[in-house]
């Protein structure tokens, strides 16, 4: 695109080089004065907050207009210089002389009088305004550009925002770099580029775009288009994010939900009841399993067990020896789904309690063989509370095996840090109902279940609401960032 300027190069002479050097090195502002056959133009070049160079034409006058009031050219130009050109020696001044003659000589004298250090470049045929625009786009980066990422603070794990270096000062348009970050939210992440004028200076946002990327680790390629414009050419569907930075920051969680480690969900379903009752219970078991399958696709990380249990039989000569049916133990979500289908409703043989305590006993035994540090969760879905270990005033007969549901539950809570939630056919009436204790993590009614919430409370998935919308870098990955 600069191709058409090339033939003019001899005419521009040393101007292009001189100007490029000054644009790269000026601090506050740079004044460029163009003197040609017709008149004089004064340009001012500044860098904006994000280091992009911008030039403005401050004055433009024909020789004839300058002298129309009888003023000498030298005085008129001196007045313009005084008004528009900084007196500060730190702000460089460059004079491009395109043509020569009396007026031009007078103007030069006037400019030199105001700023004796002003440099003169002979540039016959050059067009300074156009050249400035070209050179600004080609200028090296005056500041550092960082991608804003979130990192866990070493001492307490709270999230803090830091910059991952994309381009350092001096980087040139066309430069490319890569940065590795993790997307933690299924909704994608916000790519915010900030400029740093110095190590302690506050940052300005260069750009903010929403990148619809899936959760996981991504290596992003960034290209410096020109100062003030960074592109991520390999991410399709980037959309500008128009929120203010304050708005973005308020949506950020204080800390990241720890990526859930290995988990084990035990779904215990009471089979006793009508087909409709039974199917409603299985429906929710299946739904929760589906949520987990979606949110935690790694089969190594999540195991599911499915057990059905019915009611005890009383009134027979021998004590009831029926046992809960383990449809599947420590299986994948897919296997658990299939196992769920294998359960069948059973006819209640006792109305007010079910062999829930036998289920707990068996689960407790099986959990002993489970590796430590597995997040273990029990979801019990049914209508009837467990039998007590000894019959009490409520006239519910004791468990034939004398299992103590509360002792078993406590033991699992202590040994495995078990979380226990329940979905009941009916809301537990009495405040003393075992359902409240069994549902210490959550109690839902079968007609009002929030499966996502349930999975979250059981500790099997991380919180859905407060997702981190910024790229995340772990402590180990983080190098070269600054804050």
């Amino acid at each position, binding site marked *: 695109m600069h191709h058409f300027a090339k033939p003019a190069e001899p005419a521009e002479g040393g101007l292009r080089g001189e100007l490029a050097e000054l644009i790269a090195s000026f601090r506050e502002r740079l004044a460029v004065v163009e003197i040609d056959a017709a008149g004089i133009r004064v340009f001012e070049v500044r860098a904006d907050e994000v280091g992009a160079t911008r030039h403005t034409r401050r004055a433009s006058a024909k020789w004839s207009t300058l002298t129309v009031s009888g003023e000498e050219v030298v005085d008129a130009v001196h007045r313009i210089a005084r008004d528009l050109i900084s007196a500060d020696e730190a702000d460089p001044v460059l004079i491009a002389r395109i043509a020569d003659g009396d007026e031009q000589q007078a103007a030069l004298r006037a400019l030199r009088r105001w700023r004796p250090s002003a440099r003169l470049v002979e540039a016959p045929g050059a067009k300074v305004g156009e050249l400035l625009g070209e050179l600004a786009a080609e200028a090296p980066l005056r500041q550092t550009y960082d991608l804003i990422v979130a990192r866990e603070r070493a001492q307490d794990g709270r999230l803090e925002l830091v910059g991952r270096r994309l381009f350092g000062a001096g980087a040139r348009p066309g430069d490319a770099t890569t940065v590795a970050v993790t997307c933690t939210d299924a909704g994608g992440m916000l790519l915010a580029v900030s400029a740093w004028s110095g190590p302690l200076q506050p940052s300005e946002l260069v750009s903010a775009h929403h990148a619809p990327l899936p959760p996981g680790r991504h290596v992003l390629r960034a290209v410096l288009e020109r100062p003030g414009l960074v592109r991520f050419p390999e991410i399709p569907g980037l959309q500008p994010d128009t929120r203010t930075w304050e708005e973005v920051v308020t949506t950020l969680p204080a800390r990241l939900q720890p990526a859930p480690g290995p988990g084990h969900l035990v779904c215990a379903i009471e089979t006793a009841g009508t087909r409709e009752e039974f199917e409603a219970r299985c429906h929710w078991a299946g739904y929760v399993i589906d949520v987990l399958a979606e949110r935690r696709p790694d089969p190594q990380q999540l195991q599911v067990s499915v057990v059905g249990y019915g009611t005890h039989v009383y009134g027979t000569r021998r004590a009831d020896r029926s046992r809960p049916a383990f449809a599947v133990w420590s299986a994948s979500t897919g296997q658990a789904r299939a196992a769920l289908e294998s359960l069948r409703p059973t006819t209640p043989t006792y109305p007010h309690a079910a062999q829930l305590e036998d289920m707990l006993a068996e689960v407790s035994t099986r959990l002993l063989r489970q590796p430590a540090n597995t997040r273990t969760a029990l979801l019990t879905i049914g209508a009837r509370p467990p039998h007590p270990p000894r019959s009490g005033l409520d*006239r519910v007969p004791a468990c034939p095996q004398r299992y103590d549901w509360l002792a078993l539950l406590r033991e699992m809570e202590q040994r495995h840090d078990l979380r226990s939630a329940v979905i009941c056919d009916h809301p537990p009436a009495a405040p003393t109902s075992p359902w409240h204790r069994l549902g210490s993590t959550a109690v839902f009614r079968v007609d009002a279940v929030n499966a996502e919430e349930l999975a979250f409370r059981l500790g099997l998935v991380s919180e859905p609401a407060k997702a981190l919308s910024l790229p995340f870098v772990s402590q180990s990955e983080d190098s070269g960032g600054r804050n």
Partner: protein
Amino acid sequence: MAETDSAPGDPERGREPDIAMWGASGSGKTAFLAALSIALNKSRDAGWRLIGENPVSRTELAKLRNTLLQARTFPAPTEALTYYSWMIIGPPETRRRWWWPWTALPAKAPKIKLDFLDLRGDLYAESESNIDKQALITSLVKSRGLLYMFDPDREARVGDAFKHLDAALHEVAGRMLVGDEYEDGKLPHYIAVCITKYDDPRVLRIAMEEGFTERDPGDELRIPQVPPDRVRDFFRLLCQESYDHNTETILDLIEAFFHKDRIRYFVTSSVGLFIDEELGRFDPDDFLNVIDNAGGGLTIRGAIRPMNVMEPVIWLGSMLRPGAIRNRPWNG
């Protein structure tokens, strides 16, 4: 047992009932009758049998027994007045004269006539008199032995025993005590006060926790029993647990209307406690014998072992027919 000269065992009373029964509705009267026939048939050594006096009563008796033993549930609540005309027949006894012991008189079986009017127990509290009520009062007036059923669980929940008893006693007293026949102002009956449903946890737990129970060393099943001399205190305690304050005074009410030495207290259960057959003895953690079933009714879980069901009847019999009962002092 002191024999009194006012024992109403005179033959002239003929076909009049010996024993009448009352208690609030649901207090366990029908179940008691059903259990009585089982209990009498079970105790081989006692040699007593319960028979129906007429075909209708015989059928009823068989029905009651079957409900408990076969259907393993309780007879349906009595909805209308039902007459049971039964007779308890004891083992034939060879009677000897104490002054001429080497010749025996012809064997004679003792017979106690039971007329049970099983009806809704709340009749007493109704102000207007009706046929059922009059029939019952008449039966109470004519009889000389009373089985009074007290249901501690109902008392703890409803607490209407006092009201019923008070009303009934005043009716009976009004009919019997106006004349000069009973000069001491007390009713002439023997009364067996039966605490029912001992097997229920709300009764048995109180008995055990309050220290009223003992074990018979000879009992393999180690069933906790309330010894006879403590039953009256246990009854008083249960009355105090009642929903209604008046119930506390039931014992006083009974003792005001009857001769103290004609009152006896019994702790009864028509079905008995559950005993796990594999364990073979009473288990304080698992004695529930009546449980709700899936059909919305009740099921008797284990073997039926009526407790103190025939004892009050035989006691009444022995009081009413002093000569006919075995356990006379000289018979051992």
